Every structure is written in C-alpha cells, then in structure tokens.
C-alpha cells in the first residue's frame, strides 16, 4: 500500500523551476531514499510534501491530498532547523505535542532520555549546539508516531549513539508498516538503509529503483557513490580537480 504518492510535481520560485514533473511513491514498510546533488530539488520536493511551498501536481499521504489533515500523518525533520529558538526544548515539545493533540507525554520523555538531552531541556534552544538542536528537531518529528517520516539530512550533527538510535528507529518504524522518505548526501548511509532510491538532478528524477537496479542502470559495479556520481554526470574530472588543488 502506498503511504506517499507524488505525481507530476512542479515547484516554482518565480521563473525558476526547482522541481520539474517529479513522480514517485513510497510504500508501507519501505525506506525510500531521495538523493541528488546540492540544488537538485530534493528539499523543494520535501517542502512541497510537508506544505511549506506552493506546488502544482498531486501529492497524497495515505490517499489524502496534502493539507491540514495530512499534517498529523507526517513527522518531518527539516534540513535547516525549524525551531522556536527562544523557547526551551521542553517548552517546544509541549507546544508541538499540544498542537498535535498528543495525550500521552511518556513517549516524549522516553525520546528525551533516548537522545540524552535531559541536561539541556531547560535552556533556550538558541544556546544549544548544532547536534543538540538536531536532536530536538528529530524528537519533535517522532513524538506523534506518524505513519510517514520525512527526514531531510537527519543525521547532521548527531553523535554516534544518537545516529545509531535514529537509524534503528527508522528500521523499527518500517517494520511496523510505517514508511520513511529519507534524503542524505552520505551515500554509505543511503546504501545501508534504503530499500529503494530515486536520484534527482536539475529538478527531474533521472533514475529510480533498488540499489542493484541503479547499478545495472548506470553500468557500474562499485559503490552507491560511484553509481550516484555516474548518474548525475559528476564522475568525470574529480581526480583532475583534486590534483589541481593539492
């Protein structure tokens, strides 16, 4: 069953087309990777799904068109922090949990302990380190047990323990019929976590499938990084650039 359906998605910023007729689907029990170079349209696609930018086309979450009703079906970790910086983490979680109408706060407390931020929950978010802010962002996306997790570079700044916890949580989430849309620049992580991957470049999806299917498509035997660089036309010239710099 499809948890997320994106059909013919177009996102424009003025005259610039950031996402150009993109279509894909994320099924339950699946971690779907959305990979692409900087400025390829990954974050714009994600922002359209979570309702941050206007778009043309069709986006559905569990069969419902995106809108206020689908916001409780999504847990979103943005690439850039979207936190109320003068609140403390505890106040921020309280606000998010209240707006999402969560009755049981034990989940929030468990997540706070799991990510080890008990000592920082009473300090304004603005004063926290990047890693701790990322933990606050991740916790606020998980507190309402959404069927769809949309994680845009979620491991940025996380320490090894928290990264492992988040990766395990993603695996458990899909085992319980949830779905994850995952965006990252770290190919090794994508390779180890994702069931299927879409490669986006210049606003268009240029390849989609399992890692084996992508390797076949790119005619590359190596790692996902090799496949990705080949597909996006960035493979050539890397050695020459490094030689020239060093």
């Amino acid at each position: 069953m499809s948890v997320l359906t994106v059909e013919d998605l177009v996102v424009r910023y003025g005259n610039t087309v950031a996402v150009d007729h993109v279509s894909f689907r994320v099924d339950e029990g699946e971690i779907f990777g959305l990979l692409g170079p900087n400025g390829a349209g990954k974050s714009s696609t994600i922002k359209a799904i979570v309702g941050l930018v206007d778009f043309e086309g069709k986006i559905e979450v569990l069969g419902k068109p995106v809108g206020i009703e689908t916001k409780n079906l999504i847990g979103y970790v943005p690439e850039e922090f979207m936190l109320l910086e003068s609140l403390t983490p505890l106040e921020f979680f309280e606000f998010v949990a209240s707006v999402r109408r969560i009755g049981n706060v034990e989940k929030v407390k468990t997540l706070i302990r799991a990510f080890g931020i008990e000592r920082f929950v009473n300090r304004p978010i603005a004063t926290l380190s990047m890693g701790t802010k990322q933990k606050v962002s991740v916790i606020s996306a998980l507190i309402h047990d959404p069927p769809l997790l949309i994680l845009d570079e979620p491991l940025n700044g996380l320490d090894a323990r928290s990264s492992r916890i988040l990766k395990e949580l993603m695996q458990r989430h899909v085992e319980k019929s949830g779905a994850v849309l995952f965006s990252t620049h770290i190919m090794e992580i994508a390779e180890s976590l994702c069931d299927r991957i879409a490669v986006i470049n210049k606003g268009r999806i240029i390849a989609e499938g399992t890692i084996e299917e992508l390797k076949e498509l790119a005619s590359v035997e190596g790692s996902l990084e090799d496949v990705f660089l080949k597909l996006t036309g960035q493979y050539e010239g890397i050695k020459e650039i490094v030689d020239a710099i060093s």
Partner: protein
Amino acid sequence: MPSLKELWKISGYFYRDLVFRSVYEVRTHKKNLEKLIRSAKRSMLLNKMFLALMLSVMAIYTAFRSNVMDFVIFYAMITFLLAFFFLQATTTFATQNFDILYTLPLSGDEVSKIVSLTFFRIFDIPITTVTIVFLVAMIVRSPVSSAPALIGLLVSESFSIGLVVYLSRLFYSKITTGSGWKSVVRILYYVVWAFAFFSFYAFASAMGWLYRNAEAYSSFVMSNSKILSFLYPFCFAFLSSNVRTPNAFFGVAVWSVLAYLSLRWATSKITEVFTKFEWDVEEVELKLEISSPTVAFLKKDVRLISRSPALCFLVLLPIMESLILSHGSVSTAIVVISAFLVVVAFSLHGLEKEGITKILPVKTKTLVTAKTLLVVTIYLISVGVMNVIFAFKGKTPDFFIELSTTLSVFAMSVIVLIIAEKMNVRRDLYSGLSALVFLIIPGFVIVYLPLAIAFIFKILGEDYLIPLFTASFIEFLLALTLLNVL
C-alpha cells in the same frame, strides 16, 4: 589594523545578512531569490526613509522656533524615538551570528566596533538625515546657536544607543536567564527593566503634551533657569535658543563627556549583549503540560514575548499608556489604547513567521482565536489599571464604554489577523512596517467606527451609549461569524 572605513565595509556584509534574514525568515517562497533580496532592501529602506522624514520634520519645526521648551522636547523625543526603534530591532539583531569574526585576524576591540557599526546601520539614514537637516536649519536660523544645537543632538543620539544597549543587556542577561528560585529575581529585574524604559517613555509622552503648551511652560523654565540650565536636555536647549548662562555651558561640557562615555560603554558591551551567552546546565524534572492547541499558542506567545525586549515593550505599551492617560478622560484613554492594539495584533501575528506552524496541523481559527484572546487580555489589563487609578482619584470608571470597546477590540483583532493571514504577511514590526500600513486602516476603522457613531449622537444631543454598544456588538457578531467559517 583595519581602518574605520574598512570596519564600516565589513559591517555592511553583516547588515545585508541581517536585512535579508529579517525577510527570508518569512519563507513565503512566492518570489524568486533576487526579488526577495530586492524586496528586503526596499522594505528596510522605506522604514528608514519614513523615520528620517518624521525626525526631519521635527528638526525643522524646532530649529525655526526660538523657544527653549521646543528644544527640550526635541532632544528628549529624539532620544526616546531612536531608542524605541532600535529596541524593535534588537530581537532580529540578537540572532545575528558574528562568530565568524572571531576566526578572522581581528582584535576584540575591532570585533566590538564591527558589531556596533552593524547596529548603527539599522538606523543610519534617519540619524544622519536628522543631524544634517537640523544643522542646516540651525545655521540658517542662527549660526551662533548651531554648534550647541548640533552637540545637543549628537548627545541625544548617543544616549539613545547607550539606553538600548543598557536595557538589552539587562533583558538578555538577567531576564531571559535563570529558572526556579531565580524566577523571583527575574521578576525584580523585569520591573527594573520596564521601569527604566517606561519612565523614559512617560517623560517623552509628557514632552508631547508640553509641546502643545510650550509657551506656557517657557516662563516656568526661564524662572528656574539656574537649576534647569545645568540639566540634560535643558542646557543644550538654552544655548540652542540663544539663552547663555554659565551653568548651561558647564552642563553642555558635562553631558557631552557623559554621552561620549555612554557611547564608548555601549560599543564595548554590545558584543557581550548580543554575541555571548552563558547558561547553566542543570538536570530538571521532565514535566510537560499538554493543553488545547489554542492554549498552547497562548502559552507559546507569552513565553516568546517575555524573552524579547521588543515584543515585551510593545505588549506593555498599552498598559503603560493607560497609566499615563488615567490623568485625562476615559474616552481619550480608550481611543489611544485601542489604537496601540492594532500594532500589537500585527506583531503577535508576526510571531508565526517561523516555518514550524506551517508543518503543524494548525487551523487559522486556532491561530486567530489565540492571538485575539491575548490582544483582548492586554486591553482588559490596560483598562483595569486605568480603572484602579480612577478609583483612587474618586472618578467613576465608565464600564459601559469599556465593555463596548472590548467588543470592538475583539472584532478588530479577528479581522486584522484574518487579513494578515490571507495576505501571508507574517512579519515583525521591524521588517514589516510597510505591510502594517495596510492593516492599520481596517483596524482603526473597526475600533473607531462605534466611537465615531457615538460622538455624532452626542453632538446631536441624543443618547450615545446605546448606539455605541449596538455598533460594537454588530462588529463583534460579524467577527464571531467570520471566525466560525474559518
């Protein structure tokens, strides 16, 4: 060692970043990046030009009158107005990241200067314009008086910057920090902070009143010139209007030195205020209180307000105004207080400029209801404060007018917030002054229409209370209907 010109140039990069962020934070994504940058620059320029025009008109008016009181009022107003506008910008300024400067080969003193210059850039055009306009006008009127007049203006400008840095330092270091037992100390600091600013505000407001009665008070000032001519801003005012006393010369020298020291202190402390925070790390009980979405927004807004000097000032302004206006009539007080609430409603809506509310399941009705409840609460507190003072003075508060206006304030807030939401203008007062102009008109119409109707009935010699209440009640019902269809 970089020259001042180079430091000024470096501060320009930070200022451009500040301007861009103040608009970019809105994240409307409806314009392309180039348009967004142009819009940010235009918006800031418009704000500066508006303030420059306002101050220049005051400067020309004052320069061509030779009355001591006019100069006294002018200097006091310059200090207050600049402090007021600078304070509005402190919230955005506090989020500016200057850390990159510490990684560059710059001394601590140079970093301080760059931060200070960036801060000055926020209102560089108004300050420069008013200084030039005032100097030229004074030279035309009386070349001899132009020198003390210019010094008086520069001293006023320096005091305003010193005042803002002092209040911000107090706010960020004492009020926004600490918890538990420190809350008591926080409240004490809050009182000190609010008292320091509002006593100055009260002084400037009184100046506005004196402006209208300047002639009458001039004789009082002249008869007490020996004492007054030593004090700021009287010493500058005396010399600017060709009244020369030894005390005035002495006063000018003393206050000029103090202004210089205030500016130096502000420059040295500005990095401490806006770039360095020290926080205690302590384990706390994980206690979360889940409430309805409307209450959650209310709590969140109150928390954000209590941690931003600009917002705190705006919210306390109607309450302070009610204290000052309680010396006059109820109707005058209500007219002024309700006008401030249009700006408060706009600023509360600006709190949602962060993207977080866009990804949460928030209905417009929830948002508008929460903000309106806060606006009405501020109004009721203001009116309550006024009534207490009236009671002490033996005056009878006019509950009927107050009740009617409460209904209008509710309607105003609902409609202004709905328009702001539809226009997607989630801005603060600093970045959204031009957008506010569009909202002030409907806001004022809603608040003042019932009062205007009542006024007409009063002139005609008819009972005006029933028409006042009826008009307000109709507005209230209209707002409730709008709220329910959202």
